[in-house]
């Protein structure tokens, strides 16, 4: 497992200003967890630079996006809990 500096928890759609703010503060050793409406970023094929991208499985499935997750690791709540503890800091956008 590589170093994980900041874990960004993103629950906004790509049209929300905070989605762009999050991408603007993303570092190369960071990771994103898309939750709630944030998973729509997968449908909009947003570029996430070099950050690792995770998406909450239940939210992806609920929005009918299970087929749009090629480069994304789906995580359950338990794996998300683990990620928050691996990261040096966590920010909820």
């Amino acid at each position, binding site marked *: 497992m590589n170093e994980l*500096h*900041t874990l960004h928890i993103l629950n906004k759609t790509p049209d929300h*200003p*905070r989605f762009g*703010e999050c991408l*603007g*503060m*993303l*570092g*190369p050793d*960071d990771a994103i967890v898309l939750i709630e409406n944030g998973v729509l970023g997968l449908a909009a094929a947003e570029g996430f630079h070099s950050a690792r991208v995770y998406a909450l499985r239940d939210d992806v499935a609920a929005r009918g996006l299970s087929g749009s997750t090629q480069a994304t690791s789906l995580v359950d709540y338990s794996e998300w809990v683990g990620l928050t503890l691996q990261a040096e*800091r*966590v*920010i*909820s*956008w």
Partner: protein
Amino acid sequence: MAMLIIIDQPPYGGWTGREALDMAFSLAAFDQPVSLLFIGAGVNWLRTGQNTSGIEQKSVEKNLAAAPVFGIEDILADRISCERYGIAPPELADSVVLTDANAELLAQYSQAAFAG
């Protein structure tokens, strides 16, 4: 290391910014190091000449002027957001520092949070 409280919503049209400021003041009151970052439409907090008498709300300009007195370490404003909203450096109070909101900035803080 300090906490960074981020405000990305403009004043008056919503309460989230005020609630973010309350969080920052609380941390400072308990001697916890805290700084504020204004980004996006949040930079409109920093404009001078706010006259709120017609909307029956307290001026956030005055609230914010008290921040250094209450022990808030830095008041940071994202440079690009200020340009976008036409807020030029001479207009900013002396206590406000222009910065670039990026990963390097975030790395200087142990935690970062929005109020909502």
